[in-house]
């Protein structure tokens, strides 16, 4: 059965930041990516690291040899253990879309954030 969990006030979760909350005994990271909200389970599908504690940032996009193109600023979460990169907006691993961390829907109501879990 799904239910709503209050995350907090929208204004307390600024763009580029995250908060890790407990939902039914599980940790979930809630992220503000440029004003949109996403939630990911705090367990890396690789070896179980607290993924949501990783660095939030950009990535180097696939490019031509010798070229470095920075992109997806703020949308990429890097696992603190083995540095795998995940797309915060989809929960998928950047190099292998079959590898994904569980995502949850986040809704905004009356200035408050709610997680659907």
């Amino acid at each position: 059965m799904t239910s709503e969990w209050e995350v907090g006030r929208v204004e307390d979760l600024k763009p580029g930041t995250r908060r890790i909350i407990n939902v039914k005994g599980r940790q979930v990271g809630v992220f503000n990516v440029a004003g949109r909200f996403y939630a990911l389970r705090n367990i890396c599908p690789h070896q179980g690291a607290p993924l949501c504690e990783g660095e939030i940032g950009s990535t180097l996009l696939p490019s031509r040899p010798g070229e470095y193109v920075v992109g997806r600023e703020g949308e990429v979460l890097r696992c603190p253990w083995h540095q795998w990169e995940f797309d915060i907006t989809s929960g998928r691993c950047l190099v292998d879309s079959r590898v994904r961390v569980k995502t949850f829907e986040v809704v905004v109501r009356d200035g408050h954030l709610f997680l659907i879990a």
Partner: protein
Amino acid sequence: MSHAILIGESSQLNISNMVNADAATALASAYNDWLVTTWLSFDSRLLGSAFAATQDPIAAAREIDRIGSHPQIIQIALGSGARMPYGQRFFYPIFEAAERNNLAIAIHPFTEGSLIANPPTAAGYPSHYIEYHTCITGSIQAHLASLVFEGVFERFPRLRVVIVEAGVAWIAPFVWRMDREWKSLRIEVPWVKRRPSEYVNEHVRFTTQPLDEPDNPDHLVQIIGMLSSPELLMFSSDYPHWDFDNPERVLERFPDDVQDQIFFENAQRFYQL
């Protein structure tokens, strides 16, 4: 957990690559003292790997005799970045001292191409860390072949060697290759009286990290099944490095008895704990 074996990291592994042999010898002793006072005396479950500067093998042997009597020192660590393959006679005072003090020799990748060490690959210096890190088994394999074919285990019949953190998927085919070469070319090294695989089984152990990650995880179980015995493997975490293996996850596909062997029984036997 009854024991954890500590091994230093790049700055200690690089002691043997410093240009100044006397400075390196002094630094190794200082590190060993620090290891004892900071860690080993902190908890008796901690066991330590001492360092010895290979630039001066006679002084290194003296240091091994000095530190080797500490009951929690169980091995001497060498980096795989070196000026020559470890089977060569230049290093024998070190092996002799290790054998005399009942210490294993642990060879750990990571110092190739650094300071006075040879380049990280026989093809030269790669441009990127990712290439270097992919290729670290190369120097380890050269040291292993050298130890076997120079007859180190014939000269030092009680010497035990552990190859630390060089991965595992390559071991079985590499040992097959040594056996195959030996059948044709043993006349060049007549002191190698038995098949190379027998020396490996008797004298050498390998630690697990980094475990390879094939798309089909059962392939890893199969390739480890190709070793002469799972007794050759001992768990290592590489903690706290970025590429460490999580003990709760990495061996979960292996049968329980094999997990027990890799997690503790093999180490218990190898280090006589």
